[in-house]
Structures are given as C-alpha cells and as structure tokens.
C-alpha cells in the first residue's frame, strides 16, 4: 500500500543568492538522504534515487536536469531525472524517488518525467526508467492522472524513435506499472520489485482475495507466467549491469549507427561439436544453446524472457562483431513447439529488432504449433499471426537456417522465405514439409494402412520413403524456397557473408 500521508520535509527554502549555492546543494543532498532513511518498506533497498541513476551510468557522467524542482518548498519533485553515458554513449535516466510520498506521481513529478522523455525523443537517446513508485499521487487528484497519461503518451511516441528500458526496484502500482508495459524491456529485482494494478490492501477490499505483493506482482509471476517483465535479477547492481549490457547491443535511436565490436570467433570446442550436435532422429531433444555457441561470436549475450515460453529462445548476441537478435526454437523445453505464449514472445522480439534495424537470425527446429482445446482457447491463431506480421514488417537483414525439422504453419512462421527472409538455408539432414512423416503417411495412405496386415510396419516403411522423397531439403532448394543446402560447419561463414552483403559491409 503506498504511504501517502508522510509530511513533506520543509526545513529550508531554496535561496537565490549565488554565493549560497554550495550550501543549497549540500542541503538538497542531506534532505534526500535523510528522507531515504525513512523509506518503507526498506527491504533490499540500499540506494537513493540519485545514487541509482549514478550507478547506472559511467562513473561521474550523470548530470541531473532539474535538481531543485519541487512540488512545494523543500518537498522535492519525487524524481531524479538527467543524463549520462553508458560505455560512452548518451542515455537519459529517470529515477523515482521512493523517499518522496512513496514515489507517487504527482503533477510536478509527471512534468519532470515528461521533460526527460521529450529530451530523449527529440535528441535520439535511449531512456531508462528506474521505477519505484506507488502510482498516481492521490493528493494531486485529476492533475496526477493527467500527468500520468502524459507520461504514457510519450512512452508510446518514443516507441518508434528510441529504445526504452524499465527497471522495477520497488513496489510499482498503477501508473508506475503501466509505463513499463509501454516500454521495450522490463527488468525486475527479485523479492524487491513488484508490478500490479493495485496493491494487496485494495485487492482485498475490491474482491476479497488475500494475496501478498509477491503473489500479485512479484518477479517470478511476471518473468515466468505473465510475461509482463523480461528479466529477473538478484540485486540492483545486477539490474544496472543487465541494462548496460542490453544497451550495448542497441543503437541509441532508430536510424542510429549499430554498435559494432571487433569480431570474435565462435567457441572452438562448440565449433568442433557442431557437425554431430543435432540428434539425427528428429524426436530426440537437444540444447539449442550449444548449437548457437558453434555459430555466434564467443562473447557477451543477453537472453530475454528465459523462463517465459522457454520453447523459444530470444537473445541479443554478436556475429562478426554485428549486434544481432537471435530467435531459435529450443527442443529442450516442451519439444521446441510454438504455442500462444511462444508466439507472443517471438513476435515481440522480432518486432523490436525490426524497429531498431537489428538483423534477425532465426534457427529453426520446430515440430509445429501445439494444437488442441487449450491453445485454441488461448487464441493461438491470433498470436501466431502476429509472428508472421512481425517478420514481414521487419526490413532489417533476416537470415534463417533450418537445422533439423520445420513443419507446417510453424515452418512459415519461423522466418521463412515467404515472409521475406533475405537468406534461407537448410542443413543437409533437415526435413521441411507440411507435416512430419508419421502424420503425413497416416493421412496419405489411410486406406492402405487400414487394410494392411501389419500397419505399423507399413507405416514405418511409408514414412521412410516420405522422409527421403518429400521432406528432404533438396526439394525446397530445387524450388528456390531455400537458397542452399549447407553443412552445419558452414553456417557461421554463410551468415557472416550474407550480413556483410546486406549491410554494405558496415553496421546495418
């Protein structure tokens, strides 16, 4: 429950005498620190709003925009906003001050946040929101709501212009939960950050449900079940580190230069293992991460939504030094299927890459969309369609490789040639078909199988013939639907050559 009745600290008024400036700064700093000492619940919170902003950016680079802005004398605005650099690149930071009315967003605080948002959008810098706020400040009434709405509108305007990252470092209710939902990536600190429409007390009053803040808005709920947040970390320090890593893969704004690093070869052990990594039998699972190790640069990566819809992997990585978005089916989790949640996760990721001109590398080993009453009830058709749209809308380089099998609608959805992939390959042993051999022969040879004395023997024979004659990738290659049939160990070089060509030898 946001604590809104804390009296403002009005122990000094801001002087306009220039000779008193150092004193005024000291008073401001002291006021913030002493206020912070009374923040409830303290929990794992260690750092003030200003300290958080300073820790996020390069040491000494943080500049606060309007440090003396205040809702009333001595009260503070409730937010620290400013700019700094991460790895030398400019970034705008907004950090809620939980020590001022639980970080609740009043009219003045909203104005300060909007000023920072406007600056980031107009100048083309990514913005990081450090959220720790009880939501709209009730005392400010309709002015608070209007201010929150203005923040949302700028969140939405920013989507087509700059990357937006939200950190959840405390209980965030209402407006403080909605703004993150309008940003690109949300990182939560375990057992410290929560996001909910409204807190446990109001939930109890509204519906009678007894639920803790963790139950209705904890990081496990949102990074595993709901998909509202995309990464769970153990501490504020880790949240800042993850944010800096995430920014290292992204341009500062749409149309901005891609951040190229020096190329690093793939891990040599993984490269050696690559030709025999994928089990020949298409029903046996394996870890797709090991395959990626044999293709991508052996350097920093960031997987987003690792626990939500784990049958598909979404991560930022590098190949030949290019920052890329990687989408890959993960056979090790739920057989690598696509379902409603996996489709939403994948579509969101591809759409983001397209928006910021990041190349999309797709690694396919998919048994299909999961059918059945549960998935149809979840709207798998609508969600799957979003994945198709995301690929078609994405104009950045799209490279797709089928590493084992790709069937039916899922074949189309996983970055196929028909959706505009710039290059498509299939590994020599892979299968591409409308459905798997078992299912296909059951339909195609229904009568023969019904009349056969030993239907399972006949089915296996027919399936083997189907696998060789219909599902092999050479048919697709002859038809021009895949560009080429390649060996696993050729994948990295093919992708690098295609990326160099598609990006005119630069960043993309």
């Amino acid at each position, binding site marked *: 429950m946001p604590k809104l009745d804390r009296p403002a600290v009005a122990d000094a008024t801001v002087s306009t005498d220039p000779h008193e400036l150092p004193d005024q700064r000291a008073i401001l700093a002291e006021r913030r620190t002493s206020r912070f000492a009374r923040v409830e619940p303290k929990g794992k919170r260690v750092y003030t709003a200003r300290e958080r902003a300073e820790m996020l950016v390069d040491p000494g680079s943080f500049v606060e925009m309007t440090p003396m802005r205040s809702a009333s004398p001595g009260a503070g605005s409730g937010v620290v906003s400013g700019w700094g650099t991460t790895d030398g690149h400019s970034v705008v930071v907004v950090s809620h001050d939980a020590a001022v009315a639980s970080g609740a967003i009043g009219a003045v605080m909203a104005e300060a946040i909007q000023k920072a948002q406007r600056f980031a959008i107009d100048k083309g810098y990514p913005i990081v929101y450090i959220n720790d706020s009880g939501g709209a400040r009730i005392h400010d009434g309709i002015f608070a709501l209007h201010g929150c709405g203005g923040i949302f509108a700028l969140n939405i305007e920013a989507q087509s212009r700059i990357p937006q990252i939200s950190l959840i470092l405390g209980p965030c209710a209402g407006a403080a939960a909605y703004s993150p939902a309008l940003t690109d990536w949300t990182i939560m600190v375990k057992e410290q950050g929560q996001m909910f429409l409204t807190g446990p007390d109001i939930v109890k009053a509204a519906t009678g449900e007894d639920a803790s803040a963790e139950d209705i808005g904890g990081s496990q709920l949102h990074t595993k079940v709901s998909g509202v947040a995309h990464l769970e970390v153990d501490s504020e320090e880790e949240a800042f580190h993850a944010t800096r890593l995430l920014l290292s893969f992204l341009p500062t704004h749409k149309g901005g230069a891609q951040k190229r690093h020096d190329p690093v070869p793939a891990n040599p052990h993984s490269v050696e293992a690559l030709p025999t990594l994928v089990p020949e039998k298409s029903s046996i699972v394996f870890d797709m991460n090991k395959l990626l190790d044999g293709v991508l640069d052996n350097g920093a990566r960031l997987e987003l939504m690792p626990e939500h819809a784990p049958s598909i992997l979404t991560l930022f990585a590098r190949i030949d030094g290019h920052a890329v978005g990687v989408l890959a089916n993960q056979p090790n989790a739920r*057989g690598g299927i696509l379902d409603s949640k996996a489709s939403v996760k994948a579509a969101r990721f591809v759409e983001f890459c397209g928006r910021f001109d990041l190349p999309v590398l797709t690694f396919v080993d998919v048994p299909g969309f999961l059918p059945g009453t*549960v998935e149809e009830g979840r709207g798998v058709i609508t969600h799957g369609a979003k994945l198709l749209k995301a690929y078609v809308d994405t104009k950045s380089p799209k490279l797709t490789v089928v590493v084992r099998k790709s069937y039916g609608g899922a074949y189309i959805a996983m970055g196929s040639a028909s959706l505009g992939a710039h290059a498509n390959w299939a590994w020599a042993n892979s299968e591409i078909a409308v459905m798997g051999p078992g299912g296909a022969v059951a339909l195609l040879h229904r009568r023969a199988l019904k009349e056969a004395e030993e239907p399972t023997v006949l089915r296996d024979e027919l399936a083997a013939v189907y696998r060789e004659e219909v599902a092999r990738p050479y048919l697709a290659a002859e038809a021009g639907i895949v560009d080429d049939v390649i060996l696993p160990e050729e994948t990295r070089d093919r992708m690098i050559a295609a990326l160099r060509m598609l990006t005119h030898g630069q960043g993309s």
Partner: protein
Amino acid sequence: MHLARAEIVSNVWKIEVREGDQVGPGDVLAVLESMKMEIPLVASVHGHVGKILVELGQIVQEGDPVIEIDETAGA
C-alpha cells in the same frame, strides 16, 4: 513432497523409474510424447521416487502431476 509435473499436453510413453528409486536433479523420470517429440520429464530435486501417478499411454495436461518425489532432507 515434490511433484514432477508435465510441461506440455502429452501421452506418457515411458516410465524410467520405480517407487523407492533414488533420484537427483537432471535424472530422467519418464518420457512424455507430444508433437512426435520425446520429451524427458527430469527430476529437479534429490529424493526417492514416491507414487507414480500415471499409467503408460495416459494423456496428461500441462501442469498435471506425474511422479511424486520424497525430497531428501538437506540434500
């Protein structure tokens, strides 16, 4: 008591353990078949296999308990 649950709608294809077997994280308890994939159900805790709650060929829904594990204290 820990319950190993099905991660996807599937049929129980193989059961690889018996009641009383000692298991640890990563050990395969059963193999579920769905979408023509052999999906291993692995233990996530140390313990002894308790009741096996399904039969071969039975259809399980996502989240259904498949095998009980009596967790070993302190392991």
